[in-house]
């Protein structure tokens, strides 16, 4: 792959407990990774994931807190139920399951997210660019009203 895989990264704003890690994500992310911070994984609507996929993401990474460590008590658990199933469902219609990855972090974890993103990028390089479900209408040059 000549270009680096495009990764849509959805991050719960509480899951990176160490300021160093959060700071790295906020300022040092490579340009092929697109960050969306959410108040909780429970706020990640499956439609967000679908929009990333339709828009051409080669992979989607979702990071949140381990069970029983959610800032909102059970947001992560509800998210796990829904988003895991949504991933299975996308797979049902031909989107490779390996393209969506979850990272559930412990509050003690340090330096994990960098490693996870690097590993995900490597694995996506092996998989090659995504082909299926990339259908979003390209906006014509000059904007919507051109």
């Amino acid at each position, binding site marked *: 792959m000549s270009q680096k895989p495009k990764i849509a990264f959805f991050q719960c704003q509480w899951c990176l407990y160490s300021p160093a890690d959060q700071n790295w994500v906020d300022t040092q992310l490579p340009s092929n990774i697109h960050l969306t911070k959410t108040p909780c994984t429970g706020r990640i609507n499956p*439609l967000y994931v*679908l929009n990333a996929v339709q828009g051409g993401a080669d992979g989607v990474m979702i990071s949140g807190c381990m069970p029983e460590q959610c800032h909102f008590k059970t947001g992560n*658990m509800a998210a796990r*139920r829904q988003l895991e199933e*949504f991933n299975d*469902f996308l797979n*049902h219609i*031909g989107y490779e399951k390996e393209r969506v990855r979850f990272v559930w972090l412990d509050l003690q974890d340090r330096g994990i997210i960098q490693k996870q993103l690097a590993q995900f990028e490597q694995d996506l390089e092996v998989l090659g660019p995504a082909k299926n479900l990339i259908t979003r209408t390209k906006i014509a040059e000059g904007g919507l009203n051109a």
Partner: protein
Amino acid sequence: MPDLDAIKTEVRRLLADGVVEVVVAFKPGDTPLHPQPAFFHSPEEVDSLVHNGLCQNNLATFLTHLPKTKKVGMVVRGCENRSVNALIVEKQKSRENLYLLGVPCEGIIDWRKIVEHVGEAVLAVHENSDEVTVETREGQFNLSRNELLHASCLRCAHRNPISADILIGEPLPEGDPNLARVAVEEFESLTNEERYAWFQKEAERCIRCYACREACPMCYCTECFVDHIEPRWTESGATPAGMQGWHIVRAFHQTGRCTDCGACERACPMDIKMTYLTEKLNNDMRKKYAFEVGLDIQTQPPFATVTLDDKNRFSV
């Protein structure tokens, strides 16, 4: 076959005694192929009530069209009874305000299959448990009832209404619950590319008319995500992303809520298949959470609840 006179007698009684204010059932439509849902308010109107294999709709859909406190009677088959239960779980109606006339169901005849055999100019249809006799100008055709059934009915495991106030007719033997699983597994055995090709071929014919949504008892949102402008959740035109997005998300919203009644498919003017999506989700809910939609009026669907078990249920 259901005893129509017994149904009518009971409906008349409900209305005459004031047990309910309205009964939702079917009346004859423009052609014999399309009986239509109807609201019966007085015993006199009940003469025109019909109930046969060509009644395509899931009547539970109309529950959310009526005021919550209205006393409603409804003629329900197996899937409709379960849809009603699912709506009660979601607090769209309370059981006290409902009177369910259950009719054990021998399966819904997919009207399209009749048209395939004999064309559209149908004068009359008669049926018994094995055979459907269709009269047209060209003559009379005898068709096997089983071959005309809608796919959802062929794999149905809940023909008998499970919580009706009165059952009209004898309970039927239940279907094999494995049939639904086998159908999903068959589709899943295809390769990624084949599955995507199938999905594309179905979704791309969609004209975004939303008949599938209107036909579904569980699509009762006041504002559907596709009608939402700010933020715009998905492309709203008949574009590839819009059509695929609609199919993906409509089905996904039915997770743990769909009874596989098949009303969405039968309503689609483009003959688009949709239950291969919802059945996958149903199958997963059975596998992962041992959950079957509408078996009672308390159990919340898996997405509406979490348990501490979840800690061990996920791989990561």
